[in-house]
């Protein structure tokens, strides 16, 4: 190779180098994808490790009879490698080569320690017994006692009134009302000569002896 040719090749090489250096550099998202991809397998197995703690709270601790203190459940030690089960599929890589991974924060709410109250069965919190529903009480008002007047039924009053019976009153009609009250009019009646009082039973018996005599028709 001549000196000229060598110089030309050197310049061309430098030109290629310069052109590559000036060319815009394409940002590579994989620079941040790598650590994310390393985190993702660490979190996803955490959601699977929760059921591994085979300890469930008592469904209704308040209804159980007092039981002897149960020994604290010591969960088996979980090896760190068990908590991090690698995803066989590996990190998802987008079509454009981006290895960024979406991380869901919902799985972060899981308890991370067995000492949390939710799983602490060594000293169950005392729960007040469920009270029976109280019945609704409707108290009626106080009894009302209604007494009739002490006075006797006013039976004798109509006696003094004129007869309203449509019947033609014979001359020997007698009236027997309730025992009369002391009235001046009654006093005059008592003063009159009357026959000895007759019991009602005898008077009814006489009435039972009556027969019906039909008038003769021409």
């Amino acid at each position, binding site marked *: 190779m001549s000196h000229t040719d060598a110089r030309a090749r050197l310049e061309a090489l430098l030109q290629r180098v310069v052109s590559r250096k000036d060319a815009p550099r394409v940002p590579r998202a994989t620079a941040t994808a790598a650590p994310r991809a390393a985190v993702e397998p660490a979190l996803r197995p955490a959601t699977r490790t929760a059921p591994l703690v085979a300890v469930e709270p008592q469904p209704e601790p308040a209804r159980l009879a007092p039981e002897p203190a149960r020994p604290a459940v010591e969960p088996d030690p979980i090896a760190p490698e068990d908590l991090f089960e690698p995803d066989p599929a590996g990190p998802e890589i987008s079509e454009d080569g981006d290895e960024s991974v979406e991380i869901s924060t919902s799985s972060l709410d899981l308890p991370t320690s067995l000492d949390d109250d939710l799983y602490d069965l060594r000293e169950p919190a005392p729960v007040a017994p469920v009270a029976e529903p109280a019945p609704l009480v409707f*108290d*009626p*008002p*106080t*009894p*009302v*006692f*209604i*007494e*009739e007047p*002490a006075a*006797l*039924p006013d*039976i004798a009053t*109509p*006696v003094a009134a004129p007869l309203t*019976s*449509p*019947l*033609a*009153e*014979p001359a*020997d*009609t*007698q*009236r*027997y*009302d*309730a*025992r*009369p009250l002391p009235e001046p009019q009654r006093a005059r009646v008592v003063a009159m000569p009357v026959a000895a*009082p*007759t*019991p*009602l*039973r005898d*008077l*009814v*018996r*006489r*009435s*039972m*002896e*009556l*027969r*019906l*005599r*039909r*008038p*003769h028709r021409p």
Partner: protein
Amino acid sequence: MGLRTNAPTPTLVLDLPRGRINTGAAHSERLVALPAAWVGELLECLPDGLDAFADRLVGPIVADAAEALDDVPGSLPEDVAWALSLAFARRGFGLVSFERWGDAMLFIWRSPPATGPGFREFAARLSSRVVAELLGLRVRGAVLNGDGATLRVLLASPETCQEVRSLTVEGVSPEAILEMLTTGDAT
């Protein structure tokens, strides 16, 4: 003879907490307050049950009346009228008195709960049975007449009462029926 001074005081107790009404006595029966007009309507609907309904009332009424009388067989008409009025009034049935027309004895029922045709038969049955049970007689009754405030029931033998009912159906007036009643043989 006469009225007892220790006659029970009429009392009506409205036991609202238990929803009951009674007379306050030790063994008083439970009462039900219903409109008086219903009694007449009920009796109209139960023509075959009038006698049974009346007979059911006889016992308690006679018991109350006898308790107020010192000597039932020897009681005067005024005393019996008072005792029966007390027993009737405690049940809201009105008052009782007697009238004598010649020898014919009439049971006067004042202010009865009803005065309809159905109640008249009931009144004749109840009044005659009360007097019969109280005095120990086989007396029967027949309604002679009545208005909205008073019913007059003839107390006589069963045969005479049957004839009186027939005359009433025929339209014979009460005055004429009383004039037909006489002692001795009927013609």
